[in-house]
């Protein structure tokens, strides 16, 4: 039950800057995911919010109170670690009750709270087991139990599903979201797995090399990536990038793409001639005989309801997601038709998205 604000947060280790000036606000009750490749600074940011790491610069505010230099214990935040960090010398009940023991609660009260938490997580039958005997999913539930038993202001989770196998991960994803909705505490969830972030979060922050590239809802992130990095990182297979050189005028409805013209959403930004990138999601590509962009089929991956067809074009290899009933022969010459209202344009040098009718959002707002 807390509103978290991070202002100009920076963290340097000797030569290396892990986080370079992050700014964001997480409203009360939000499920906030920080997503990025390993080493992008997401875990460091989380550890600073938890108080396990001191920032080099910047401020952290919980409900408006500056806690930047408060001890971790004084912040009333729970942290769930990737490797669970269950104490091996205690059983499940002792593990869950451990945070309460510190608050000098009576034994009866602790027992009641532990039982209540176990009921919530459906692990009542495990209370007297040793933690080393548990399966990965159950360990994760115990770790969650230890976090929620104290009823903290916020939950911070550092890749909590990273150590689980794929099957469990899927199950825990929905359980986590369900738990969040029931206790309705602010949650920050760090992951490098886009599916986890997309499926659970209300808001996602994409981080790269210590910088936040974009903050938005999963739909915004997917449909209106603010930069080439975000467009490339989200989606599988990722967005296709086609390079070209052209100038742009505000109000244009089409671009000069090499020798042809391609319709795009109305451009809201004027540009001198320079290197640009046309971004097309695989699912926004269709085959058409009279299409201006042509190529030869390189391969096809059958995925059940759809197939991913890769096509070699003069501008690079393009992946298209097509219905699987479509017959495709390798080596066949095809024309590629783009859904014009879903195309994205990027500056090839800065990587930033160019403002158009559908990509109005700019980074960091």
């Amino acid at each position, binding site marked *: 039950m807390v509103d978290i604000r991070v202002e100009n947060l920076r963290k340097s280790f000797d030569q290396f800057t892990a986080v370079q000036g992050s700014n964001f606000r997480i409203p009360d009750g939000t499920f906030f995911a920080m997503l990025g490749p390993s080493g992008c600074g997401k875990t460091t940011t989380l550890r600073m919010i938890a*108080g396990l790491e001191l920032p080099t610069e910047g401020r952290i505010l919980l409900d408006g109170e500056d806690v930047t230099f408060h*001890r*971790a*214990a004084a912040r009333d935040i*729970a*942290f769930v670690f990737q490797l669970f*960090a269950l104490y091996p*010398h205690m059983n499940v009940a002792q593990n869950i009750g*451990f945070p309460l023991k*510190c608050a000098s609660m009576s034994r009866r009260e602790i027992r009641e709270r532990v039982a209540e938490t176990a009921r919530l997580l459906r692990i009542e039958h495990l209370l007297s087991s040793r933690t080393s005997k548990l399966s990965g999913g159950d360990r994760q539930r115990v770790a969650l139990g230890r976090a929620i038993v104290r009823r903290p202001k916020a939950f911070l989770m550092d890749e909590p599903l990273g150590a689980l196998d794929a099957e469990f991960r899927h199950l825990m994803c929905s359980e986590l979201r369900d738990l969040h909705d029931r206790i309705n505490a602010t949650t920050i969830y760090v992951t490098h797995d886009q599916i986890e972030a997309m499926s659970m979060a209300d808001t996602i922050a994409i981080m790269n090399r210590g910088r936040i590239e974009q903050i938005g809802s999963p739909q915004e992130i997917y449909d209106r990536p603010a930069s080439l990095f975000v467009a490339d990182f989200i989606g599988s297979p990722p967005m296709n990038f086609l390079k070209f050189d052209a100038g742009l005028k505000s109000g244009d409805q089409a671009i000069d793409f090499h020798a042809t013209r391609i319709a795009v959403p109305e451009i809201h930004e004027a540009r001198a001639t320079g290197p640009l990138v046309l971004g097309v999601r695989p699912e926004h590509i269709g085959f058409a005989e009279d299409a201006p962009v042509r190529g030869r089929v390189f391969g096809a991956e059958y995925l059940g309801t759809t197939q991913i067809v890769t096509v070699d074009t003069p501008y690079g290899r393009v992946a298209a997601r097509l219905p699987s009933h479509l017959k495709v022969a390798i080596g066949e010459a095809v024309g590629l038709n783009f859904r014009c209202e879903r195309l994205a344009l990027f500056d090839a040098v800065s990587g930033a998205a160019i403002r158009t009718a559908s990509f109005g959002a700019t980074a960091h707002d």
Partner: protein
Amino acid sequence: MSAIAKSNAHSIVEASPRAKAIAGTIVILYAVISILPLLWIVATAFKSQSDAIAYPPKVFFQPTLEGYVNLFTMRTRQTPDFIAKLPPPTTWYDKLVRQHDMVIAGPSKVVPRFINSLIIGFGSTFLAVFLGTLAAYAFSRFRIPLADDLLFFILSTRMMPPVAVAIPIYLMYRQLNLTDTRLGMILLYTAVNVSLAVWLLKGFIDEIPREYEEAALVDGYTRLQALRKVVLPQAVTGIAATAIFCLIFSWNEYAFAVLLTSGEAQTMPPFIPFIIGEGGQDWPAVAAATTLFVMPIVLFTVLLRKHLLRGITFGAVRK
């Protein structure tokens, strides 16, 4: 495992019967070679003076408790007439002594020496492990300026035999009035052991994931509480192994004990070789003292052996 799998002789996980037999023989042979001198000492403690120095050595002999009685008592030789005039002996050991025309004059110094050994050995072990744990934790968890240099410096105190600094320490102790005091010996052995303790324990604590403490810190504990409730219970194996190594050193230490103690604080090692009987070394008494002397270490090791075994192989396998 099925019979077929077993008969498929060449397994990479299970040794062949012949290899097992060879390994077993080597281990047994080694055990016999190591234990034989100890058994000889234990046996000698039950021999009479003449059996102990008999040549060729006697394997079978009439056991007697003379060695133990001599160890614990001081005796004076008397004329047979004098002994005849005494009231009859009240205890079995009085009787045993009188057979040799002697009477017990009082207790020997073995008990106070043994107590010294216990206090100094366990005291210095406790201190070394206590200080070592704190230092190792700090080295393992905090960014300490020049940590590597400090660790090397700590280790360098072990690079020469401690006796090499015997003379400076003797002079220092004389100035500080620490010669022949238990405190002095405890401090000395602690100083020698603490470097070993820091290095051993740092390895163990490095192996304990930080997340455990961090979880405790986030959950409202102070660092000291986290250390006590989360780190130490998991380091218990390492602490036990370290304690045994420290205890063995301070328990057996001889050179400093000879140099710095003579009365008050004398430990067993310098005491045992000077158990003199009539006409020279009283071998059965020496053997009896040695037997008693090794007991506490054996007991300590047996009690902690579960930890010791795990401790020695700790960290070899990534979990």
